[in-house]
C-alpha cells in the first residue's frame, strides 16, 4: 500500500517541477526583455533630450550671429551651429519616428545646415558685421528655430511629467502602421511639423539656392511607343545576338519617363538583360546583365578598350576614363566626355566589364542623357604655370588638367583639376580657373577591402 502511495506522487511531482522550471524560465526571459527594453528606452530618452538641447543652442546661435561684430566670433558661431545641426539631425534619426511625416522639420534642419556651411565658407571674404541679406536669411531660420524649440520643450516637459515611454510609442506605431491618432509624443511632433508648415518657403536669394541643371535629350519632342522601345532595345544590346524575347516589365513615370525592358537571351545558360528606354527620344538610359563572373582573364587596360569600343558603338565619342572600381572580377569604369581639352564632369557615364571574358555587363548614362550639351567655356584666366606655383608643396602632384565641375550648389564652374597624393591618401583638388580659389577637394583613396561570407 505504501508503495502505491509513493507512485501516486510521481506525475504530480514531475508536473510541479516542470511548472517551477517553466516559471523560472519565464521570469528570466521577462527580466532579459525588460532589461533590453530599458536600454532601448534610455537611448531614445537621451536622443530626445539631446535634440531639445541642440535646438536650444541652435536658436541661441542664430540670435548671436545677428549681434556679433567680429569675423572670428562669427566663424566660431557658425561652426558651432553647423556641428549642433549635425547632432540634432543625428538625434532625430535615432528616434523611432520613421513612420511619422516630419519632412518640414527635417527640411528646416538641412536648410540651416546648408546656410551655416555656405556662410562659413564665405565669411573669410566678408566684412566684420554680417551683411544685410545674410542677416535676413538667418532671421528667417531664427523664427523657425524658436518655434521648433518651443514645441520640443513643451513635449519634453510632458514626457518627463507623465513618464511617457518611447518604446511603447514605437510598438503602438508599428501596430497602427503609422496611423496613430491619439498619442502625446506623436502629437507633439505633428504639432511642431504643423508650425513649420505655417511658415512660407524660405526666401534665401540666389546665394543659397541650389542650381538645378536643365534636363536635355530625354525631354525631347519625339515620343516612342512600346513596339519602338522593343526595337530600340534589340538594336542597342548586342544587335547580332539571338534573343528569345524582349518584354516590357514596367513603365516608369519619374524625372525620366521610361519603358523597363527585359531581354531573354536565346541561349538558356545566359543571364537576362534589363534595360530602360526613355519614352521621349528613345535613349537607353541604363542596362544591366547580372551574370555570375568567373575568374579574371582580362586585364584592366583590355577592359578599358572594350568599354571604348562599346561607347563608340553607341555614338559616345571623346570619352575619358576618370575612375575605375575593380572588385570580384568586375570592373566599373567612369567616363566623362571631353569638350576640346576640358573634361565635363557632370555628364558622366559608367560601364561595367566582366573580367572573365571581357564582355560589357552594365551601362549607366542617366547623368549624360540628362545634362550633356555643348557648353560656352571661357578660357582659364589662371594659367597652368601660375597654378603650379600656388599649389601646396606637400601635395605630390600626378596630373593637372582643365575640368568643368558642378560645385556644392550645383553651379557649373571651370576649374583646373589637380590629382595628387599625400602618403597613402589620394585626392582630386579643383581650382577655380578664374579666381584660383580651391573650389572642391575629393578624396579618391579606395576604401579598405575585406572578405565576406554568403549563404549558399
Amino acid at each position: 500500500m505504501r508503495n502505491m502511495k509513493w507512485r501516486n506522487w510521481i506525475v504530480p511531482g514531475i508536473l510541479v517541477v516542470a511548472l517551477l522550471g517553466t516559471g523560472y524560465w519565464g521570469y528570466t526571459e521577462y527580466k532579459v526583455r525588460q532589461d533590453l527594453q530599458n536600454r532601448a528606452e534610455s537611448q531614445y530618452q537621451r536622443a530626445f533630450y539631446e535634440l531639445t538641447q541642440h535646438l536650444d543652442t541652435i536658436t541661441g546661435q542664430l540670435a548671436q550671429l545677428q549681434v556679433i561684430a567680429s569675423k572670428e566670433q562669427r566663424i566660431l558661431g557658425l561652426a558651432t551651429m553647423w556641428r549642433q545641426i549635425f547632432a540634432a539631425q543625428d538625434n532625430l534619426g535615432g528616434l523611432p519616428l520613421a513612420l511619422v511625416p516630419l519632412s518640414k522639420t527635417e527640411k528646416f534642419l538641412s536648410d540651416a545646415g546648408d546656410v551655416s556651411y555656405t556662410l562659413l565658407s564665405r565669411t573669410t571674404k566678408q566684412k566684420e558685421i554680417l551683411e544685410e541679406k545674410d542677416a535676413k536669411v538667418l532671421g528667417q531660420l531664427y523664427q523657425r528655430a524658436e518655434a521648433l524649440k518651443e514645441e520640443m520643450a513643451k513635449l519634453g516637459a510632458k514626457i518627463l511629467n507623465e513618464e511617457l515611454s518611447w518604446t511603447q510609442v514605437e510598438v503602438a506605431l508599428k501596430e497602427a502602421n503609422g496611423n496613430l491618432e491619439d498619442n502625446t509624443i506623436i502629437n507633439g511632433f505633428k504639432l511642431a511639423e504643423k508650425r513649420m508648415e505655417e511658415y512660407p518657403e524660405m526666401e534665401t536669394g540666389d546665394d543659397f539656392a541650389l542650381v538645378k541643371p536643365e534636363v536635355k535629350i530625354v525631354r525631347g519632342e519625339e515620343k516612342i511607343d512600346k513596339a519602338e522601345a522593343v526595337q530600340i532595345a534589340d538594336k542597342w544590346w548586342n544587335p547580332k545576338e539571338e534573343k528569345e524575347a524582349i518584354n516590357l516589365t514596367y513603365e516608369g513615370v519619374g524625372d525620366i519617363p521610361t519603358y523597363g525592358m527585359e531581354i531573354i537571351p536565346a541561349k538558356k545558360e545566359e543571364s537576362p538583360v534589363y534595360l530602360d528606354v526613355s519614352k521621349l527620344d528613345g535613349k537607353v538610359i541604363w542596362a544591366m546583365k547580372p551574370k555570375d563572373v568567373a575568374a579574371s582573364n582580362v586585364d584592366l587596360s583590355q577592359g578599358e578598350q572594350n568599354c571604348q569600343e562599346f561607347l563608340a558603338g553607341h555614338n559616345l565619342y571623346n570619352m575619358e576614363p576618370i575612375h575605375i572600381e575593380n572588385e570580384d572580377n568586375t570592373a566599373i569604369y567612369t567616363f566623362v566626355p571631353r569638350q576640346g581639352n576640358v573634361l565635363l564632369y557632370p555628364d558622366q557615364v559608367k560601364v561595367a566589364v566582366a573580367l572573365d571574358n571581357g564582355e560589357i555587363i552594365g551601362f549607366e548614362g542617366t547623368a549624360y542623357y540628362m545634362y550633356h550639351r555643348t557648353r560656352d567655356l571661357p578660357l582659364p584666366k589662371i594659367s597652368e604655370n601660375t597654378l603650379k606655383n600656388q599649389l601646396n608643396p606637400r601635395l605630390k602632384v600626378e596630373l593637372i588638367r582643365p575640368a568643368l565641375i558642378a560645385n556644392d550648389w550645383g553651379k557649373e564652374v571651370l576649374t583646373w583639376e589637380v590629382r595628387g597624393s599625400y602618403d597613402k591618401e589620394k585626392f582630386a583638388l579643383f581650382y577655380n580657373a578664374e579666381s584660383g580659389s580651391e573650389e572642391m577637394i575629393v578624396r579618391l583613396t579606395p576604401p579598405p577591402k575585406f572578405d565576406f561570407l554568403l549563404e549558399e
Partner: protein
Amino acid sequence: MVKTRIRVIAVVVAVTLLFTFILNQIVGTSEKALARGGTVSSNDVYVLSKIINGEARGESFLGQVAVGAVIVNRVKNPNFPNSVYGVVFEPGAFDAVSDGQYYRKPLSASVKAARAAISGWDPTYGALYYWNPATATSRWIWSRKIINRIGKHVFGR
C-alpha cells in the same frame, strides 16, 4: 493503474520533447551552409546587400537593385541620415531590421544588386520610399508620388 500512469508519463515526456524541438526550430538559429563570398571595398556594400537580402529576398534582380537604390537615394537626401548605416538602422525604417531578417548572411545576387545600386544604377530614378501595395496600410505612404512598380514593390517619392 500503474500501466496507465507510465503511459501518461511517456506522453508527457514525448510532448515536452516535441515542444522543445519545435521551440528550438523557431528560436534557434539553424545552421546554414556558408560560402566565401568574395571581397568588397567598404562595408557599405555588405550592409546594403544584407538589407536587400532581408527586404527583397525572392524579388527579381532588378527589384533588389531598386530597393538598394532607395537606400542610396536616402543617403544623398538631406532629410535622411547621411550614411548607409544611418539609413538602414533608423528605428522602425525597415521591417527586416526590426524582425531580424537583416542578420542573415546574404545571397550572392543581393551583393551584386548592392554593388550596382552603390555605383549609381537606379531603376527608381530617385525614389525615397517603397511599399508593398498588398500589405501597406499606412495612409501616409499612399500620398507619395509613385514612380514605378517593380515586382511586388511600388517605388515613390
